[in-house]
């Protein structure tokens, strides 16, 4: 199969079931909202070393937020509910509450909830104040900068972690441009984030290592500089490979993002667009690229 | 010719102090001599047998039984009657009045609602630390009168129970420090060691500030004064309150009727409660009418509630502001009234009392008063503590038995009420 003349591998991205939530952070102005959102979603590329995966989903206008201030929505993902609560509490406490003028709200209405503000409130040392508006409870925590407002509970739901596409280009510049194009388009999709820096993974990995103390190592099959030394999946003319990893609140959103990404990445100079998997046995969800593109899912 | 009889330890029913040491000499069914009575009490005894009511229907004299039966009819046939008064009658009559209220689906309220009812409402919020009068006489080293003027309202109070009395541990005036808080320098204030003139309506602020000071906190100030009293003075007062071994506060309608009304008493009760963390401290409402305390007591054991009780559902419900006399009359919600031993035409706001002219009103009272003018039915009765016996409760809820020592032409309140009750019940 080809998209705009670019070859699409007949393979699938192997993804996992994760728990996800959406956090809205607002501030007095865009500068501080963005600062907080970036800090909160920083160092959250992979649960393997970061404990949580996160990314900024969307910038929100004052009309779109509950407190009428500029904001951002951030998605967070972990494998287990417990860890989501734990990691989120750390991040909200350390990066949002500490950021000037911010407030923090739940952005996901769902049955299942985790207590975040309800735990962070104790930071108020007894001076915290609860407010209940139409069944949503908020906590006002006195801080040096004034008051930090945070919602008591955040909705969580099952989502997908690890959807991906791999873009193989003739050279680094072309591959990166294609990847950037892809990320830009994928960001238009609601309910997904690309948790790696700039949305792009430069150092992909495989499971297993020659060293017994490591359980992951560089993705040798896709490393262009050693394609002569080891078994490679790359053609001779491949100069650089970039991966885009997608976490989303639903299968549909992830598929939609992959589809948009592939289309946007299909530019001259790209050799092939493929996806990463472990043979299909580890993940809970397999996204077949051809199926996605055929429009089986939507469009 | 006729023999002179002497009675000792008679109880005067005028005020809530219920002095039970009156001596009376009687000859030919007339009071000849009175001892130990205060100026008001003396007048009361001397005048007791004058200005007596007779049974009346629509301004015309009638048989006693006719008046009774008309009263029963009015109560039976009304949809929402009011029974009011009760503070100057016996517990026996009060009990029966409650029964009549129940039988006739009435609202029943006592003069408590316009005197110390607010204190009872405050008690329902916070509780109350109190004592009998003798305990205060025996132990209290610091006595405070707050918006209370016993010298004019309870003339023998200070001699029998407080400043000037002889107690077990406190023997005389010099064993006690006395402070008065009031909006004007009353005769009681003149007997005190210290008088503080309170800005009218600011008792609440003052009490709350004292609570702060007693608990070691500083109240917020605008001009170094609270309720017209300097903060430095208040600090001294707070220390005195804390250092009292057995302090006591007597409060009057200067507290219950003003500003925050029952919340004033709530503040006072909260202060007194707090003060028991330091020493002992008690408070006492200066009950006005002789058996107004009894009206709350009897109503409470029969209905669970002290006043402002409604029986339209054949069980008691309670709500001051809804089932209280002033509200019911002023809002024109009742279609008949039974006034027992009270004079609302003199004592209630004019517009509330005026409604009694428009609805069938029954008055049970031994004397003519301003309300009897408004009554369709007037029922005479015997004189409590003179020609009628019965039970009365002092301001500190100590019960006393009244003994009658003269003959009367008319049955007493309790008997009249029993008759009315029977007529309604057996209808």
């Amino acid at each position, binding site marked *: 199969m080809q998209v705009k003349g670019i070859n699409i591998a007949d393979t699938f991205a192997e993804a996992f079931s994760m728990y996800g939530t959406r956090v809205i952070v607002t501030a007095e102005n865009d500068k501080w909202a963005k600062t907080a959102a970036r800090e909160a979603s920083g160092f959250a590329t992979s649960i393997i070393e970061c404990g949580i995966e996160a990314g900024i989903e969307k910038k929100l206008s004052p009309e779109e937020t509950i407190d009428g201030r500029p904001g951002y929505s951030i998605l967070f993902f972990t494998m287990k509910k417990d860890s989501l609560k734990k990691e989120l509490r750390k991040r909200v406490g350390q990066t949002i509450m500490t950021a000037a*003028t911010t407030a923090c709200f739940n952005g996901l209405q769902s049955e299942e909830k985790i207590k975040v503000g309800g735990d962070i409130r104790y930071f108020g040392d007894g001076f915290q*104040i609860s407010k209940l*508006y139409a069944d949503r409870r908020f906590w006002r925590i006195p801080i040096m900068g004034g008051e930090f407002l945070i919602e008591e509970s955040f909705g969580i739901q099952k989502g997908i972690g690890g959807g991906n596409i791999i873009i193989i280009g003739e050279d680094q510049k072309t591959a990166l441009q294609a990847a950037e194009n892809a990320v830009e388009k994928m960001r238009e999709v609601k309910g997904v984030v690309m948790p790696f820096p700039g949305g792009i993974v430069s150092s992909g990995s495989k499971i297993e290592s020659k060293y017994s103390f490591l359980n992951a190592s560089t993705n040798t099959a896709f490393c262009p500089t050693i394609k002569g030394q080891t078994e490679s999946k790359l053609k001779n003319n491949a100069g650089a490979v970039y991966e885009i990893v997608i976490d989303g609140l639903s299968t549909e959103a992830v598929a939609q993002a992959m589809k948009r990404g592939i289309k946007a990445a299909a530019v001259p100079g790209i050799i092939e667009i493929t996806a990463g998997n472990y043979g299909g046995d580890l993940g809970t969800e397999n996204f077949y690229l051809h199926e996605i593109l055929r429009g089986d899912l939507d469009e | 010719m006729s023999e002179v009889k002497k009675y000792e330890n008679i109880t005067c029913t005028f005020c809530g102090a219920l002095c039970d040491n009156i001596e009376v000499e009687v000859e030919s069914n007339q009071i000849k001599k009175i001892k130990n009575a205060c100026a008001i009490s003396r007048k009361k005894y001397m005048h007791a047998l004058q200005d007596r009511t007779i049974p009346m229907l629509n301004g015309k004299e009638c048989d006693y039984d006719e008046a009774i039966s008309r009263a029963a009819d009015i109560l039976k046939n009304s*949809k929402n009657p009011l029974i009011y008064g009760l503070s100057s009658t016996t517990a026996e009559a009060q009990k029966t009045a409650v029964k009549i209220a129940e039988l006739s689906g009435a609202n029943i309220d006592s003069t408590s609602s316009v005197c110390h009812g607010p204190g009872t409402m405050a008690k329902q919020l916070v509780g109350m630390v109190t004592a009998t009068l003798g305990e205060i006489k025996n132990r209290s080293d610091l006595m405070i009168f707050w918006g209370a003027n016993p010298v004019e309202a309870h003339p023998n109070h200070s001699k029998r129970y407080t400043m000037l009395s002889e107690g077990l541990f406190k023997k005389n005036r010099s064993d006690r420090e006395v402070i008065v808080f009031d909006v004007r320098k009353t005769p009681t204030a003149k007997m005190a060691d210290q008088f503080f003139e309170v800005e009218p309506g600011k008792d609440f602020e003052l009490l709350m500030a004292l609570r*702060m000071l007693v608990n070691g906190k500083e109240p917020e100030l605008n001009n170094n004064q609270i309720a017209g009293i300097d903060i430095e003075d208040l600090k001294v007062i707070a220390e005195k309150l804390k250092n009292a071994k057995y302090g006591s506060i007597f409060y009057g309608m200067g507290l219950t009727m003003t500003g*925050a009304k029952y919340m004033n008493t709530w503040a006072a009760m909260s202060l007194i409660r707090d003060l028991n963390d330091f020493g002992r401290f008690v408070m006492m409402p200066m009950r006005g009418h002789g058996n107004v305390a009894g009206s709350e007591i009897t109503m409470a054991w029969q209905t669970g509630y002290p006043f402002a009780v409604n029986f339209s559902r054949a069980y008691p419900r309670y709500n001051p502001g809804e089932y209280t006399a002033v509200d019911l009359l002023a809002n*024109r*919600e009742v279609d008949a009234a039974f006034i027992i031993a009270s004079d609302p035409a003199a004592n209630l706001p004019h517009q509330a009392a005026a409604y009694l002219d428009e*609805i069938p009103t029954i008055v049970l009272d031994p004397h003519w008063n301003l309300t009897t003018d408004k009554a369709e039915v007037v029922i005479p009765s015997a004189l409590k503590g003179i020609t009628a016996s019965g039970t009365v409760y002092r301001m500190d809820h100590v019960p006393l038995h009244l003994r009658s020592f003269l003959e009367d032409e008319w049955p007493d309140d309790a008997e009249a009420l029993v008759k009315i009750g029977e007529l309604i019940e057996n209808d």
Partner: protein
Amino acid sequence: MSKLRLKLKEDNPALIKRDNEVIGKVPVEAENINPDLIKDLNLEDLKNLELLVGKKTYKFKDFFEIAGEPAPEIEIYGDLSNFKYIGAAMTSGKIIVDGNTGMHTASEMKGGKIEIRGNTGDWLGAEMTGGFIKIYGDAGHYVGAAFRGDKLGMNRGLIYIKGNAGNFTANKMRRGEIIINGNCGDLLAAQMIAGSVYVFGKCGSRVGAGMKRGTIILSDDIKLLPTFNYNISYNPNFLNTAYNHLEDDYSIKIPDYLKSGNYARYTGDNTELGKGEILIWEKE
């Protein structure tokens, strides 16, 4: 949707007359005006539903001209200022009264909506635990309060009064929101435990006396009790959230000026827990 329409008869058994002139009105206990009860009745049963008039029992048909059919939505026309307990303890449905109502309207309400297009009496929404009350005119005393001796007043739900409210509004309030567009009497939120009260008009004396927790938002300056401390003049962000919620969820119009500018924050009552707050909007 079907509706039940009740129109109060001008001559009815609650009137107190003297020489054929109306001199007063006996209270009518109308807790049967409740959608939970009425929606499943047939018309005949509805006509015979009881109303207590003082101590005497009458029927709906003695008081109302009945139109429409029994339904979860009830519209009532007439001056019902002597009717108590309308909508008391209702859990669902809707009552609209085109006129006044008396005491205990929607007291102990649990859910649904009640709208009074006139004035109402004391104890509106007392001890309610849910639902939405909207009063176009004035309310009496003890809005959302606790009954005598009880520990907790209103506990969830929302009361919106476009006119004025009386004394002891939000007395011992535990949760929920009360919004008073007009003025408010004395002892607002006395002994409040938690919740939010907004007064956009003027306020009587002794606001927040004995309050433990909770938030009182005032648009007009007041004389504070000596038991409250000043903390700061600031623009609290949470109020944005609160105001948006009132406008979005309940269509309550918040005066624009309150949405910006500073509020002075006082806390107290310091004789009690001292964790209550009074936020007073500061004119320039």
